[in-house]
């Protein structure tokens, strides 16, 4: 056992010398996966020489962290993968209104805050998927229609804990009202083929294997599977095309009031909505760029065009808490 003590001393010393010696100029709190963000940060550093330090965590915990840190926060920017937490950050007084300029105005109005406290960086479409062998696309209409008894024992959903579903239901509350949305969600729950899934990937795999006929998921999960040659039986359907459009969410950014480098942070945000950055940011995860006319990847193009819901995303944030409570009442777990 004599080797154990030197082994542990060695292990103890390792983290001390392994610290980064690069100068940090911007600190970014982000709930976006590190693998997806690193290519963007590297590209920015290569282009401008500015090092962006990335602190990863769940959006909820990062917002709580910022509230607790107050003026002492080292962070300059907040990036989330859902609009709800950005709105919560804005409501908590954490975000500084951006200076509207030529670059930030490239982001469509419904994908940014009307007070300019946050704006979208990439689009995440949450749409309907179906098993090509069991369902004809003509049978599908809208999110609400999945509550119809004809889908009993055929629908699969991801857990209501996931913020993407909370935002989808918040969007429905905005469009249909609370009572109607509650009926829809209860219908979904009664139509479930299986208990809710913990991931969109599993949901799509289950549809592919014919264990569910239809389900709701974000499009980039299908892209991940298709790149591996999987999910060949899964078809994509864009719902509510004549009446409101497909639900979209954003991965977005806000500058923090406590930032000590606001000018530098704004330069970074401006760069993020440039054509070159938009391509890197969206393609890293096969999402849609927020800036129109930025070219899409071939895979995304193969899914065809769609009309997105252009209801301002800020309205979704207003209904987020109601959505969580509604899903609890409907026993959507």
């Amino acid at each position, binding site marked *: *056992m004599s080797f154990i003590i030197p082994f542990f001393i060695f292990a103890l010393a390792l983290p001390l010398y*392994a610290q980064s010696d690069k100068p940090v100029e911007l600190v970014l709190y982000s709930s976006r996966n590190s693998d997806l963000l690193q290519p963007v940060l590297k590209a920015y550093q290569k282009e401008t020489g500015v090092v962006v330090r990335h602190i*990863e965590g*769940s*959006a909820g915990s990062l917002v709580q962290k910022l*509230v*607790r840190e107050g003026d002492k926060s080292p962070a300059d920017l907040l990036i989330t993968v859902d609009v709800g937490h950005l709105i919560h950050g804005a409501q908590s007084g954490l975000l500084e209104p951006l200076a509207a300029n030529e670059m930030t105005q490239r982001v469509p109005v419904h994908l940014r805050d009307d007070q300019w406290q946050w704006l979208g960086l990439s689009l995440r479409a949450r749409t309907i998927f179906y098993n090509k062998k069991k369902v004809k696309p003509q049978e599908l209409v809208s999110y609400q229609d999945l509550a119809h008894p004809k889908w009993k024992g055929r629908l699969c959903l991801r857990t209501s804990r996931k913020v993407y579903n909370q935002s989808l239901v918040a969007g429905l509350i905005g469009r249909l009202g609370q009572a109607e949305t509650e009926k829809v969600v209860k219908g979904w729950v009664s139509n479930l083929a299986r208990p809710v899934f913990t991931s969109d*990937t599993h949901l799509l795999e289950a549809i592919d294997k014919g264990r569910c006929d239809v389900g709701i998921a974000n499009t980039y999960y299908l892209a991940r599977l298709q790149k591996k040659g999987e999910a060949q039986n899964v078809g994509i359907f864009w719902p509510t095309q004549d009446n409101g459009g497909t639900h979209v969410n954003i991965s977005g950014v806000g500058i923090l009031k406590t930032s000590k480098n606001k000018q530098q942070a704004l330069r970074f945000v401006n760069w993020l909505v440039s054509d070159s950055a938009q391509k890197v940011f969206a393609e890293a995860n096969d999402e849609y760029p927020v800036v129109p006319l930025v070219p899409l990847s071939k895979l995304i193009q193969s899914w065809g065009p769609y009309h997105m819901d252009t209801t301002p995303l800020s309205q979704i944030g207003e209904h987020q808490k109601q959505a969580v409570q509604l899903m609890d009442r409907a026993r959507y777990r």
Partner: protein
Amino acid sequence: MGRFFSLIYLCLVLSPLLFLFLVSGESVEALDSLLMWESMSNTLFVSLAVIACTTFFGVSFAYSHSFFDFPGKKWLHILTLMPLALPAYVLAFVYMGLLGPAAHFDFYHWFELQASRGFLVFILSLAFLPYIYFFSTIGFLWVRQSERETESVMQAGFVRYFRYSLWPKIAFFVVSGQVLVLFETLSDFGAASVVNLPVITTLIYKVWFDLFSFTGAARISMWFSLVILFILGAEFYLKSKQQEQSDNLDPLRAQKGSSAFFFCWSGLRWLYIFAAFLLPIVQILYWAMPRFWLQNWYDVLRPAQVTLGLGVLVGLSVVFISILLGFLFKSQKSTGSHWIVFSSVGYGIPGTILAVVVYAAVVQLPVSLNAALMLVALGAGLVYKFLSIGLRPIGEGVAQLPKALDETSLLFGVSWWTKLRYYWFPYLRGNLIVAFLLTLIEVMKEMPISLMLAPSEYPTLATQIYNLTAEAQWEKASIPALVISLFGILSVWLLAAEKNGGSA
């Protein structure tokens, strides 16, 4: 003086609960009452079922281990302890990948794993059974051979023998194991998240992060912590009722294992080892192997260094504090058992809430929140959480120190350092190693505190696994899971070797 010191210690230990009481003010009306009751009933059901399963199988395995002799006994003992090396959330994601909705075989038609109480009980029982087994094997050391022979002559039957002869000897140890299992089950967040079953810890998370009510979360946590205090009080009461046992000069002589009972339980034990350790390890390796050449190893080595370094630092701190407490209370002539019991408060508080308490305290300091400060905060949170893990073996060792040692040192007027260096350390060596290794294993597996407090420059393996499993990326998560498992296996092996050496 002794009472004054105990009071200060008690205040320090209970201060996070006081903090929770101060910050919890808002009611949780926003929360659906059905979900509240569902979370509470799930927590209660899962806790009781896990205790029942782990006790039945843990005590049975320990019985067959202690009463029978067979080839490879030592190795089977180590293998039975090995599931301690795997965090419950790793077991959960391995089984979800194996039997879940996307598995090759559609087990879903027979077993609904998602949101299943039975599945969570299965996972947590696999993960926590070694606690009961370990404590029960120690308990069986107090059984006397002569009593066993008497019962055999009287032909009293196994049930009567167990009820009246064995149980009184092992009850104290089994209850100690059950308390650990209960705390682990109540604190579990990771496995319940993977299974998607609402329990109290996930409810706290939901109130805090989905309904944006920190004070509501603190309110639930406060009530939850009071339940923990009640459990600790019950444990303290039971321990105070325990009669002192004199040294066992007539230990059991294990029989050659040849009965049907022995073969049945050996088979079940191998099945347990397969399900709780061998299968998960093979599955993790199966997922990890194709990634070995694709993996950016810096992404794994860095968290591995941080996790091990943190584990060693916290382990050493826990050992140091435990010795200090033992020394101070011993010199105050305190009986000692209550300070061990109260230190368990931290172990019972869910990590998510403990992280908030620590964080809220840190931001009050008049210094900037740099990485070094956050590391210290993380270390402090982990030491508070796992102090009782180290304190129990060291406290038990201190309580058993011969009185002659103190009298001799007093007679010769030796300094406190000499007393520690030459009298205490040699006697407590085994206990110190056990305390250090147990703490190391727990720190490496810990998830919620690290998630909240670890600075980005110091990611841990557990936080990496959380981020990957949240998106069901089992294959990617298998690499950090493998590293945690390897560290855990080494630690459990050392622990078992230390115990086999009999120096503890």
